């Protein structure tokens, strides 16, 4: 393959751009078209005008290639793999594959508006839930006006023995095995 930009071929960056964007099956065709059109123009229009025209045209083709890549369903690999005849049925988390994860990321990137709306909705939901939790906690369990209030406990007992034996705090301290009073 010839054509190094300086040697009469299309500018190198245009070829690299199209090489990156074209599917492998179409890369030779697309770059060959670019080279042929470029050389034809050089003969008719001169190098400067041709450089501009080829640059603009390569961007135009790059957009077409980009659209073509996006148009081809990225869903195919994941869907085909899962629905392939004889594929084992997977349930729960096993049904999620790396392809599903990648597909999810691509879909988020493809629909940025939806991604933003979903993200904002989730943020609002989390904030509302956290706020409601704090409000209910303060309403149901108000903090006592003492220093270290969270360490205060109220000890009650309903055991039949307690009514007759009437234990003191000292008895509790002696008998406690799982906490320090």
């Amino acid at each position, binding site marked *: 393959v010839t054509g190094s930009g300086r040697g009469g071929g299309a500018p190198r960056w245009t070829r690299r751009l199209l090489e990156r964007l074209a599917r492998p099956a179409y890369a030779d065709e697309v770059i060959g*078209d670019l080279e042929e059109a470029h050389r034809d123009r050089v003969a008719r229009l001169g190098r400067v005008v041709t450089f501009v025209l080829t640059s603009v045209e390569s961007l135009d083709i790059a*957009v077409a290639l980009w659209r073509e890549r996006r148009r081809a369903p990225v869903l195919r690999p994941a869907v085909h793999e899962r629905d392939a005849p004889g594929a084992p049925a997977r349930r729960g988390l096993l049904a999620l594959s790396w392809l599903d994860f990648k597909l999810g990321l691509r879909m988020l990137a493809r629909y940025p508006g939806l991604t933003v709306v979903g993200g904002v909705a989730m943020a609002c939901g989390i904030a509302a839930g956290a706020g409601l939790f704090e409000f209910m906690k303060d309403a149901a369990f108000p903090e006592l006006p003492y220093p270290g209030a969270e360490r205060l406990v109220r000890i009650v007992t309903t055991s039949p023995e307690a009514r007759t034996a009437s234990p003191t705090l000292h008895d509790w301290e002696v008998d406690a095995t799982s906490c320090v009073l």
Partner: protein
Amino acid sequence: MPTESLAEFELLVMLAALRLGPERAYTVSIVEDIRRRTGRLVRRANVFTALRRLEEKGLVATRLGDPRPERGGRPPRLVRVEPAGVDAVRATTSAIRAMVGELGPMLGESR
């Protein structure tokens, strides 16, 4: 299967491919043929996209030709119009002719 109906640009591409034949029809030559016959400045990107679409519909088939020096040693993708494509061209041009009908003189056509 019902005959495909072609959009205007697709019809131009198909007609150019038919005229050039399977050994000479590829993106660059199709662009040049349409430009020469209609005077339109056709974007190569549009022809590329149209050919992919027509291929997906099964109206044309493509294959890589021989590498050519004027293409930097790269091969063209040659286009062959399939029988379904010929049917589609026939159906579309027939519909246009039927709709034009007796309006030819009004549209400035010679007959």
